[in-house]
């Protein structure tokens, strides 16, 4: 399955890019983050993040589909 992943803030810096398209067998955002965390050496655990799929907040157990856009959301600090 092909997915697009966008990175912001600390995840952007640790991954080294803002966006990438990947080929994965990860069935859920939680599986996907586990895979990426090893590859990118992300310091944050998934329990510290939220996840958005196709521009809306999503559950970690959501079934990912071909072409989904996934964004992992580090702890926010607006204002």
């Amino acid at each position, binding site marked *: 399955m092909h997915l697009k992943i*966008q990175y*912001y*803030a*600390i995840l*952007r*810096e640790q991954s080294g890019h803002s966006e990438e398209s990947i080929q994965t067998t990860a069935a859920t955002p939680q599986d996907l983050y586990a895979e990426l965390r090893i590859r990118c050496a992300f*310091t*944050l*655990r998934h329990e*510290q993040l*939220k996840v*958005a799929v196709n*521009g*809306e*907040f999503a559950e970690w157990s959501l079934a990912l589909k071909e072409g989904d856009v996934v*964004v992992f*959301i*580090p*702890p*926010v*600090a*607006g*204002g």
Partner: protein
Amino acid sequence: MLFRFTTSAIDTDSARRELLDVSAGGYASFEGWVRDYNEGQEVLRLEYEAFEALAVKEGERIIEQASLQYPIKRALCIHRVGNLNLGEIAVWVGVCAVHRGAAFDACRHIIDAVKHRVPIWKKEHYRNGDSGWVNCEHCAAAALTP
């Protein structure tokens, strides 16, 4: 539009004018300013970054909820992104209502929710040369502790 981003200085006077309403008797506003000190470190400048598409949706939801919860007339929130210097405005919230209590309550509710729920991140650059993503470096460090 009830929530938006800007890459240039927030024009509070112009934002305020968007809320003028002759049936409103009270107007409360809040500004978040870049200050020179945070958690024991001297801050030189900040960077704000947002997942703008989702942030605008979530920001608008916050203001719609506040409008249902408090009897207000109008509300608006503008958040800055990019590089900010000390003293600049990072975020502005304005609310008008018939009575002042609702204006204060809604204004505070909105800024509290924006800080907790909207996907915006802040990187602080310190005088000692370090920098860090607020709320991320500490918890990342904690994550590395077994």
